[in-house]
């Protein structure tokens, strides 16, 4: 479980996050949604302390990440996995070595054990026969799946995904969404996903936090999001005519 309390962050005097508080539950996919530039990525990077917030508390099962010293922070970070927007795979390492990297750095596993675990992680994300390919030789969707495999290599307690569907086709997006959801439940981890993909919101949004202009605009789940009266959220969720149609159809269905 991750709790954030009264987070404030500004860049050169320009406020980006304005007093944001919420709770991200364990075993659930917690989505942070909002328009581009609303502060989602800043919030996610602040939670993992890649950015330092100006004020507030960020509690990882009671441990305030802001108050941890260097070695404790290192320890906590070994409990985290993160899938970056572009995958952030190491260009100089092949797929298997990318997944093996955290094990090399932080475990005393034997080579055989590592190879077995690499196979397990890659199997888990449905990647077969690509162990020796380099990131530049695989597709965007595959890169995201390898990033997920690397993120789960050390059995993390917390998983962070920054726009995992960006640049992917709808079919691959659904695969990635389902994969993240399955992993969250299977490993009972606290997952935070930063997205503006409405399909993800509807499919895997156990908890949804809507950020608007750096403020908490709304909180709820994927059922509530369809019928909210929050004006800004409605503008965001039903920005496309297709979403409006789906909502109207669903409303009609429910009325009947």
């Amino acid at each position, binding site marked *: 479980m991750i709790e954030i309390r009264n987070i404030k962050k500004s860049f050169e005097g320009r406020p980006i996050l304005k007093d944001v508080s919420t709770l991200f539950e364990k075993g659930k996919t917690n989505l942070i949604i909002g328009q581009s530039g609303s502060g989602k990525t800043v919030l996610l*990077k602040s939670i*993992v302390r*890649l950015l330092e917030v100006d004020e507030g508390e960020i509690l990882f099962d009671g441990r305030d990440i802001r108050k941890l010293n260097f070695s404790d*922070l*290192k*320890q*906590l*970070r*070994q409990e*985290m996995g*993160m899938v*970056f*927007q*572009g995958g*952030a*795979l*190491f*260009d100089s390492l092949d797929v298997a070595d990318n997944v093996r*990297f*955290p094990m*090399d*750095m*932080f475990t005393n596993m034997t080579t055989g054990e590592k190879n077995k675990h690499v196979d397990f992680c890659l199997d888990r994300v449905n990647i077969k026969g690509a162990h020796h390919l380099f990131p530049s030789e695989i597709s965007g969707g595959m890169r995201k799946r390898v990033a997920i495999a690397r993120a789960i290599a050390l059995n993390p307690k917390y998983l*962070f995904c920054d726009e995992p569907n960006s640049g992917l086709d709808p079919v691959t997006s659904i695969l990635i969404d389902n994969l993240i959801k399955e992993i969250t439940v299977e490993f009972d981890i606290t997952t935070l996903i930063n997205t503006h993909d409405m399909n993800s919101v509807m499919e895997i949004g156990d908890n949804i936090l809507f950020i608007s202009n750096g403020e908490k605009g709304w909180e709820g789940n994927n059922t509530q999001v369809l019928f909210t009266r929050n004006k800004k959220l409605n503008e965001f969720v039903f920005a496309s005519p297709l979403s409006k149609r789906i909502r109207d159809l669903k409303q009609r269905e429910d009325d009947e």
Partner: protein
Amino acid sequence: MRIFNEIGSYFLLMYRVFSRPEKSRIYWRQLLLEIEKLGINSLAIVAIISVFMGGIITLQLTYNMSNPLMPSYLIGLGNRDTLILEFSCTVLSLMMAGKVGSNIASEIGSMRVTEQIDSLELMGVNSASFLILPKIVAVVLMSPILFILSVFCGIIGGLIAGPLSGVVTVAQYMGGIRTMFVPFYVTFSILKTLVFGFLIATVPAFQGFNVQGGALEVGKASTRSVVNTSILILFFDLILTQLLFK
């Protein structure tokens, strides 16, 4: 004010770079890769440039110093000392700042903009130490080797160009090479190459590590790193020459 900020940030980064490595075995593997990439892969270009420069210095010395009062061994002596004192350490370091420095800045800069450095940090890896320390050790280790290779190739270059063009005989040239040799010159130049090697690795690494933005900024950082490293090499050359020859 900005320059003080930069200097402060540079030393803070160095503090992180020289903290204890997470797993020395992984660092050792990285070090061998960097030695190959930054050092071994530079051997050929260093050798080629040095052979030509040795030849050119020999010819220039001959044409500009031809005087009946000047002993002919001065050609070999002049070539040797020019190579040892300045060319093979300073000029070669300037060239290495271009080749190796831009490579380091663009590699680390690209890793920054593609979030690979964030990814390392998030895993709990000291990214500064993991990425930069092996490069520093590799360049500092390889610099004296490249220096010695360069001096050797430069002397060979003179040996080829001088007698071939008929301006000096092999015996006169080799006599000059062996005349009035001061071993301290070699020690002095190796000390300089160690300092220059440190600059060649750390200044571009600092520029690359602090890139913000995209591909355009990576290119700018790469250019800035070559300019800054070159200026610093010349600045330290001046200081070290003054200090060590005093």
